[in-house]
């Protein structure tokens, strides 16, 4: 069996929210797998992604990324975000406005010019390479954010509602990329869109009031 890209159990506190992943039902994402994360607003979906990215730490339990324990709640061992290989695309994208599109995509010290150029091509961003994020439409900006995360060659990609309020073309581009198992790493995709879940997800997990549960594959 393949080594899972991610394995997580335990608890974390984010403000008023208590995230819980029971040890009887650990959250596991296999390499190459795309897991949809669903649940009501404020349930803790974004916090779950931040926990994996290393922006929040576990109070108990452990998080393993590709065989390496990166957060251990009991020993307080913690690998900071810059030494985890995650690609985080938050809902508000957080593009660097002082850099051009190509500067954003190639930002990561791990990004090389070949990958950057390939991603600009495959997400149809080549013609925008020298623009600044403020000169891009919402859909273009979202593609830049995804390309930037992928250029860092992550072991796990964390997408927070990437298709919300996107134009049809951008949505297609992003879906084409995500549907291709050979081109994407293990992915956690937060979404409210049932069509997106049906199109892309190998599996679904649900977050309700901080509690993470797996939904039976059906």
């Amino acid at each position: 069996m393949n080594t899972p890209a991610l394995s997580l159990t335990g608890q974390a506190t984010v403000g008023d929210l208590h995230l819980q992943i029971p040890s009887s039902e650990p959250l596991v994402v296999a390499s190459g797998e795309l897991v949809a994360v669903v649940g009501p607003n404020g349930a803790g979906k974004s916090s779950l992604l931040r926990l994996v990215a290393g922006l929040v730490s576990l109070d108990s339990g452990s998080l393993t990324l590709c065989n390496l324990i990166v957060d251990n709640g009991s020993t307080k061992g913690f690998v900071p975000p810059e030494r985890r290989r995650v690609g985080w695309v938050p809902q508000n994208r957080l593009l660097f406005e002082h850099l051009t599109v190509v500067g954003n995509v190639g930002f990561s010290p791990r990004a090389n010019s070949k990958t950057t150029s390939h991603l600009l091509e495959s997400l149809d961003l080549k013609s925008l390479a020298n623009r600044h994020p403020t000169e891009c439409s919402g859909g273009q900006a979202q593609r830049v954010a995804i390309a930037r995360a992928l250029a860092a060659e992550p072991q796990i990609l964390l997408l927070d509602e990437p298709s919300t309020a996107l134009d049809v073309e951008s949505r297609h581009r992003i879906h084409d990329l995500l549907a291709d198992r050979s081109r994407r790493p293990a992915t956690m995709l937060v979404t409210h869109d049932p069509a997106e879940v049906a199109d892309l997800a190998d599996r679904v997990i649900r977050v309700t009031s901080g509690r993470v549960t797996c939904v039976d594959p059906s």
Partner: protein
Amino acid sequence: MTRRRRAPRSVLLVATVAMIFLALPLVGLLQRMPWTNLGHLLGDQAILDSLRVSLLISVIAASLVLVLGTPLAWVLGRVRLPLRRLVRSLVLLPMVLPPVVGGTALLFALGRRGLIGQWLERWFDLTLPFTMAGAVVAATFVALPFYVVTVEGALRTTRDEHEQLAATLGAGPLVVLRRVTIPRVLPAMGAGLALAWARALGEFGATITFAGNLPGRTRTLPLATFQALESDPEAALALSLVLLAVSLAVLVPTRDRWLPTR
């Protein structure tokens, strides 16, 4: 079409009075300016000396402000310090302190018999009072808070989510500082530096108390203006014009780029 809201007449009236109040001294200055004699007055060696001294002192002070103030602003804006409020109050104190008091305090701290000054002299043979270096110290002391308060504000309001994102892309703390934080607060750094430089250029009280009024060494434009007012009012007017021109030369180009214009 969007209609602009009209200001109430009473507010307009008071605002006009305030504008006149600010503009009037300037008009008075320009109206008495000896325009025909200006070339001769400005060519005077004493005026040129004080211009050189002023520019040198204010530029060195602004450079020190940049080097010392940036890390200080970062610590105040981003690090959870114990007693942060107290530390911030201390940092901002020179802004509200009468400059003469600042100069006196510098004298007791860095003077030849001062707390640290005596050791500076004994160990490094370094005397600050009544030297150009002393004038630089006085100007830096009064100008530093203007820079720190501007940059600290920007650092606190610039959400650190961008920095978190940069970290997830593999950027370590120093790379994040260089490639994300500093570029994002650069406009505030420019504005703060312009304010600090202007404050250093106009510095009077702390300079005269700590560094004296020595021609060619510590007699800056404001000191020369004050001196001339007693003996040669026309020269004082010409000096004021030079200070006004230098200030405008900095304010106008920096305003559009760094200071909010709307």
